[in-house]
């Protein structure tokens, strides 16, 4: 028998780490006209981390616990990501009911596949939002939100002066950081990126909307994301 110099005691202290965008933030209520989403009221039911209080668990830790079936960890994960997830999907789909459906699909996928998340390849936030964005865009392209994809409107939308695009109930550090970083992109890079990300346009559709060659669109998308990456200080 191996010599026992120590004991297996109780679980050691949880490391408190923040990775990526998991700081608590002020939840925002649904803003009005530019969502066109009457009837969806903010929910007082879901608890959110209070401002100034560090997250007890990082998303990566929660995913690890979810992967072995811990439902409580999944509840915490939900509370941590749901507002941002719903906000992103809603902005892409523009339809609250469909946005809820897509969020549910995404979260079920997270539950099912949490074991596939490899922390060496990137942050939990990136993994989750990559899944989410793909699903949102697939839904858009399946015609479910065809009306919202009218091209002229889309172009007008991304060309709107930036501070008009969304109301803020309160500024957050992270929102300001992304705002400032987007200003590092050229107007053309930013349009290409935003038409793709927020409107779910394919690169050919973006080329048509912007009236430039496909190769140019691809370069702008790539260069725009590279600038965003460098500005945000994204390691992976």
């Amino acid at each position, binding site marked *: 028998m191996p010599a026992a110099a120590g004991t297996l005691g109780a679980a050691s202290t949880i490391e408190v780490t923040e990775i990526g965008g998991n700081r608590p933030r002020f939840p925002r209520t649904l803003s009005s006209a530019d969502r066109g989403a009457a009837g969806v*009221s903010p929910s007082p*039911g879901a608890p959110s981390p209070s401002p100034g209080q560090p997250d007890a668990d990082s998303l990566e830790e929660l995913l690890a616990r979810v992967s072995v079936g811990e439902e409580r960890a999944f509840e915490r994960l939900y509370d941590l990501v749901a507002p941002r997830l719903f906000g992103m999907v809603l902005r892409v789909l523009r339809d609250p009911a469909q*946005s809820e459906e897509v969020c549910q699909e995404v979260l079920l996928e997270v539950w099912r596949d949490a*074991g596939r998340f490899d922390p060496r390849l990137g942050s939990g936030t990136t993994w989750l939002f990559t899944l989410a964005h793909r699903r949102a865009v697939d839904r858009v392209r399946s015609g479910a939100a065809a009306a919202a994809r009218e091209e002229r409107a889309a172009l007008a939308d991304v060309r709107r002066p930036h501070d008009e695009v969304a109301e803020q109930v309160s500024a957050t550090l992270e929102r300001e950081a992304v705002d400032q970083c987007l200003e590092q992109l050229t107007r053309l890079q930013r349009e290409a*990126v935003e038409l793709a990300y927020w409107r779910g346009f394919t690169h050919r559709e973006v080329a048509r909307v912007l009236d430039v060659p496909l*190769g140019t669109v691809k370069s702008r998308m790539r260069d725009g994301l590279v600038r965003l990456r460098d500005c945000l200080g994204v390691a992976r």
Partner: protein
Amino acid sequence: MSDEPHVSAGAYALDALPEEDRAEFEEHLAGCPVCQQDVPQLRAAAAGLAAFEEVTPPASLRSRVLAAISRTPQLQPTAAPGARGRRRAVLAARSDPAQVAELARGLRVWRVVAAAATIALAGGSIAFAVQQRQLDRTRARLEQVQALLPDADGAAHAPVRGGGTAGVLVSGNRVLVTVRGLPPLPAGRAYQMWVINASGPTSRGILVLDGNSGTADFSLVSGATAVAMSVEPATGSTSPTTEPVTVVPLA
């Protein structure tokens, strides 16, 4: 696609490539180390755009989702071989050494092990190759062997204290260990393998986990009497610092 497949990396990261182009780019990606490095970073930058938009969904979404997960099975983890996720521990309190010894006495793995070595599987004998590519196949074969062995001969598995099982197969001087269903460990800890002889435990390295399963293949020392596993710092220990979570005696 153009002559410059790399330039599609941005469109790919933005989900702006339709089905056909996406498949084509993914084929390119499989063989392009530059893109393999770039794409995760570009995806992270794209995910950063989502930082803006935070809208609290209705409470009904939360209850629907939580209800749904209780009916939803989870897939076996298939993170890249060698991935070591950070895990929380749900380990039970330390067992009495006597309990572990009792466990060991109860195991008749060595008999099973001797029998297993003579079983010829369809397709040839079991290979103990250590290449990562072959681990899954090796594990599948071990499971086949274990499935063939009747319970009366003794378990081909040893329980792991805290959760999970370890299966052991010995052939000559080599050992193949398969573990399944391991409890998560605290950050900075890992499972370490040992071979035991009269001189004590000799390290056989950190068990590489693939989710909560793992496979280890290593050689014995002369006069080896058992194979054991303990929880150690993730960087490994020169000798065990904790009680073993599993001990498998050998013939």
